[in-house]
């Protein structure tokens, strides 16, 4: 029978351990990111592998992002219609949907989808390579595994995500326009005219820059979790799982910082 003091000590130790692990992981992740920048700028560059990763992360995610974006646009419009009709502001639908998709929903939803698909994929792939000692083998054979496996993947996600976001935005707007066209008799031309009337560079540019950071976070977390996965088959699963969870969480942190910074920048 544990005494109260023992229970408190045990809980405190757990919390302390958690904090310590969090700090260590943050430090390791930062170190990992620093190593990425160091390796990324140093030749030789693995272009072929980069292109291969771009294809896998960009093209292969397109359908998923497209379907998600279409449904988001559709649902957002359908859900907003009754409220806007109540206020007699249904003509503002393109403005509202356009701004919310381009500024926030498009980048965040696409990034979350990619975090689920790409970060887990990278985590599992690199984790299994670590488990099967392929990474060690590469080191032994004189190939830089970090450059070949990590830099290419992080660069690929960083470059591909903004494009996926653009595709997602366009398809989401198309979905919204379809609802407006069917339910509100608004032509596609009028819809997109109104959307681009409402949009400014203050909406498009921060969202695009933010997407690069989202891509970087997804690649970084996925690679980090996979690269340093624990031995054993369970380690692969844990790497894939934690990669998705950490990447999703970090995405929101990055989103908050990006919105905060862009708000200050565009207010000036």
């Amino acid at each position, binding site marked *: 029978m544990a005494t109260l003091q023992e229970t408190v000590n045990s809980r405190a130790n757990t919390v302390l351990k958690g904090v310590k692990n969090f700090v260590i992981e943050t430090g390791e992740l930062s170190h990992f990111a620093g190593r990425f920048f160091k390796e990324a700028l140093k030749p030789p560059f693995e272009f072929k592998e980069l292109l291969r990763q771009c294809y896998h992360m960009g093209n292969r995610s397109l359908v998923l992002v497209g379907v998600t974006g279409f449904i988001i646009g559709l649902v957002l419009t359908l859900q907003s219609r009754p409220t806007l009709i109540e206020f007699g502001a249904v003509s503002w639908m393109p403005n509202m949907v356009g701004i919310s998709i381009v500024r926030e929903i498009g980048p965040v939803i696409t990034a979350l989808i990619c975090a689920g698909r790409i970060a887990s994929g990278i985590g599992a792939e690199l984790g299994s390579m670590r488990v099967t000692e392929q990474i060690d083998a590469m080191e032994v054979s004189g190939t830089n595994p970090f450059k070949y496996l990590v830099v290419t993947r992080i660069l690929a996600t960083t470059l591909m995500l903004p494009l996926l976001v653009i595709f997602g935005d366009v398809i989401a707007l198309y979905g919204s326009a379809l609802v407006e066209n069917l339910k509100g008799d608004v032509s596609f031309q009028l819809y997109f005219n109104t959307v681009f*009337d409402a949009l400014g*560079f203050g909406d*498009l540019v921060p969202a695009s820059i933010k997407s690069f950071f989202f891509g970087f976070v997804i690649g970084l977390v996925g690679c980090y979790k996979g690269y340093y996965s624990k031995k054993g088959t369970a380690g692969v699963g844990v790497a894939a799982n934690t990669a998705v969870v950490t990447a999703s969480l970090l995405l929101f942190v990055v989103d908050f910082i990006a919105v905060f910074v862009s708000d200050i920048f565009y207010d000036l």
Partner: protein
Amino acid sequence: MEKTTAQNIRLGIFVIIGTLLLVTAAYLIGNRQNMFGDTFPLSAVFKNTNGLQNGNNVRFSGINVGTVSRIEMINDTTIKVHMIIEEKMSAHIKKDAVATIGSDGLVGSMLVNIVPGKGDADLVEPGDQLKSYSKIASQDMLSTLNTTNENAALLTAELLQVTESLTQGKGTLGRLLNDTIMANDLKHTITNLKYSSQEASTTLAALNNMIKNIDFEQSTAGVLLADSISGEQMRSIISNLENSSNGIEKIVGDLGVLLEDVKGGKGALRYLSQDTTMVNQLESTMLNIEMGAEKFNQNMEALKHNFLTRGYFKKLERQQKKEAKKVQ
């Protein structure tokens, strides 16, 4: 190897389409802000820009023709708004156009409206400053509304007092509202008034009929009303009457004076009118004359019977009968 090439082609297509979409979006947004295409600058000076911002639309006759490029504070009451306008619009905007600041709908963003002038002025040139008209700012309207509200509050407070007095039956109006006897009296009065007005209406209708029935050509009233000659004559008669009355008044005056003279004078008339002794003498004289006349009648009767004069009287009698027969 083939697989890699195919993958690269697909990746290339993906990247190209994605980049094109991004560029198109940027172009469309930029185009709305007149970042591409030929433009020319115009400006206008306002006292209050009502929240106008860089990038807000500029409309000419309701068409979006440009955007606000810069808002410059000249001094505390002068703000210069710089605009960039599509080059093709330079053929339509004239120098007498007036710029105003409005909003796009009730809750929309602010914009600059350029209203065409009425005259035949020259076309604007790049860098021209348009005349401006500042509408009442919403803040000023709210300020006025605040004063109105304060006045309304005072009025309602006073109105409350008045209604309280009324309900308590104070004052004339209060009594009017609360006194049932007065109300009944009023009701009667109104009923009487109604009756009177009905009667007046009937009378007027009758009078109207009468007037309608007057033969303006033939009847006296018609002649009196319509004949201008008779009117003139009437006027002259009245004028004569006036003159006559004036004359009578004068005569009456003179008579008054005469009577005064008679009363105060020593002439025969005064003697006749005021001397009672003479009246008595005259009375006795008249009696004597009467008696004398009676005796004279007797004498005449005696003469008729006297043989000397009887013939003459018979002759007269015969003559009278003859004349009477002639008349018959």
